[in-house]
């Protein structure tokens, strides 16, 4: 799964918060254009509150798609719709060329969508290794009766998946904390372990909910590099929510901007930056 000979071409050498990024779309048109995920006219209501209003956008294979917007704009709700926590009242979800019915989150995980959470949602009682191993659960088949005896298939399967997980541990440079319970790790590392757990599923669509929230500049740079590497090396399609505009503009191929549950902008970082509605949403607009 993991190719050797990674190339760090120094693209993220510029500090993530430079704000001068031109977006990657111009330099790396790495997307094949095939649509992985498409939301069509999604409306999500909670009682009288409409969290998402007739929102339509797509995520293309191999791209990094950012979703931005002020607080309460409905960004996280969009991710929750994609991975099945919420079921929209209206609209269609198309995944890999097929319309998706109402599925439970664990069924959606088996279709190849993985995610991380805004507030870390690791399994605190387990070690780093075990946490990342849980990411492989969708790919492990041994039933309870095979595990009873352990010898044979169960042990073989465990070792196979351990190898894949060790590669992720190498990739994320967390070898030293392999056997540490995650509850004892500092925040930045926990975020990294959570990314590892999502990667372990080898997802075809990876959702990252504020992967850099609460991090310092250095940690943000590390995380940006991991996200870019994941995208480049594994070709994983990524949809991410992030508040740090510098990071978003540097990482994303295309950006969706939301405000009050509506999509108000969509396009390359440069398009979005010059979009009137987006500027108004972020800077406020004079009501006269």
């Amino acid at each position, binding site marked *: 799964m993991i190719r050797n000979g990674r190339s760090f071409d120094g693209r993220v050498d510029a500090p993530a918060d430079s704000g001068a990024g031109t977006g990657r779309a111009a330099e790396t048109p790495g997307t094949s254009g095939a649509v992985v995920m498409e939301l069509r006219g999604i409306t999500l209501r909670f009682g009288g509150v409409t969290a998402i209003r007739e929102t339509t956008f797509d995520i293309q294979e191999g791209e990094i798609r950012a979703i931005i917007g002020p607080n309460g704009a409905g960004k996280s709700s969009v991710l929750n719709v994609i*991975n099945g*926590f919420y079921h929209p009242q209206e609209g269609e979800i198309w995944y890999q060329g097929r319309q998706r019915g109402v599925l*439970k*989150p*664990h069924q959606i*995980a*088996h279709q190849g969508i*993985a*995610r991380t*959470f805004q507030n870390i*949602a*690791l*399994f*605190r*009682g*387990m070690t780093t290794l*075990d946490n990342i*191993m*849980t*990411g*492989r*659960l*969708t790919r*492990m088949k*041994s*039933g*309870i009766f095979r*595990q*009873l*005896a*352990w010898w044979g298939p*169960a*042990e073989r*399967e*465990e*070792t196979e*998946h*351990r*190898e894949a997980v*060790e590669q992720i541990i190498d990739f994320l440079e967390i070898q030293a904390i392999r056997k540490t319970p995650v509850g004892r790790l500092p925040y930045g590392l926990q975020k990294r372990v959570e990314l590892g*757990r*999502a990667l372990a*599923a080898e997802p075809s669509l990876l959702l990252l909910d504020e992967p850099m929230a609460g991090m310092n500049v250095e940690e943000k740079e590390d995380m940006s590099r991991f996200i870019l590497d994941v995208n480049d090396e594994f070709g994983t399609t990524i949809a991410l929510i992030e508040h740090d505009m510098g990071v978003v503009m540097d990482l994303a191929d295309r950006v969706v901007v939301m405000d009050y549950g509506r999509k108000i902008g969509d396009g390359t970082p440069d398009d979005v930056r010059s979009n009137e509605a987006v500027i108004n949403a972020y800077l406020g607009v004079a009501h006269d």
Partner: protein
Amino acid sequence: MLYREVGDFKASYAADQATFSIAFDRWFYHGILAFAILVVPFLINDYWANAVILPFLIYSIAAIGLNILTGYCGQVSLGTGGFMAVGAYACYKLMTAFPELNIFFCVLLSGGVTALVGAVFGLPSLRIKGFYLAVATLAAQFFLVWLFNKVAWFYNYSASGQINAPERTVFGFEVTGPEAMPWSAYLFCLVFVIGLAWAARNMTRGSNGRRWMAIRDMDIAAEIIGVNPLGAKLGAFAVSSFYVGVAGALFFSVYLGAVEVTEAFGIQKSFIVLFMIIIGGLGSIFGSFAGAAFMVLLPVLLKNIMVGKLGWATDLAAHFEFAIVGALIVFFLVVEPHGLAMLWRIIKEKLRLWPFPH
């Protein structure tokens, strides 16, 4: 021989995942197994078997069972006594209905029956958690005991309402009934303990155990990574109840011989087993044994000291016993909330560096 990992190089992931990764631990474990199988049967007498060893072994099975449910999967249950009763009555019905069937299979099948019942009573866990689930399982406890009292079919319409274990043999040696020898009853239970503890370790170390622990630590995240909560929770209830059912069957057939359900499998059984896993350590197979040993041995030890050595009156000693055991439980929980298993882990960590800690 020092307790070290030095020189113990692991060349494969399989070796790294071994249960006893330190050579000393492996020898210790095999030593205990050999002692239990080869030596204890020759030393055991009636007193040791009935006061200490049989209850310890049987409670260990029950504790492992509850630990799978509560310690590994995070579902609190107060229905242990009721599920033990299911195992006992299933065993009784099987023994009387199929006299030809070997007692070994009777006990296993009783576990299977209990697993089914446990899975049914586990259904509420899909909707409710924590204390609320504990109350729902409490309902199972009271319902099951009431059922076995009320429906005469379960105790074969006997006048006393009791169930009595008929005599059964394994390889020609009696393991149940009044004629059973202590060593044969002991070995019979030991087979179950070793087999079930080994299976429990295997079930909890791999993907299956991770599924349970993921549900325990954060059920929402578990669902996101592809764990089906229905399967994981009901699976844990079924496996746990299988263990508890086997424990109940052995408790009735091998240990007590005659059982009246309210007395033998009342709510206090549920609490005792719950105490065992809390004191022993949640989420640890070793902890289940340690907790069972603590709760079984300590009262016997105290009684021997107070009545035997100090010459106190039996009733006075009995009351003091409760007070002291209670105080010790509180003490242990304050000093080490993660139980004896954690204490053991800390000792081992220290031992790795001893005698040069710096």
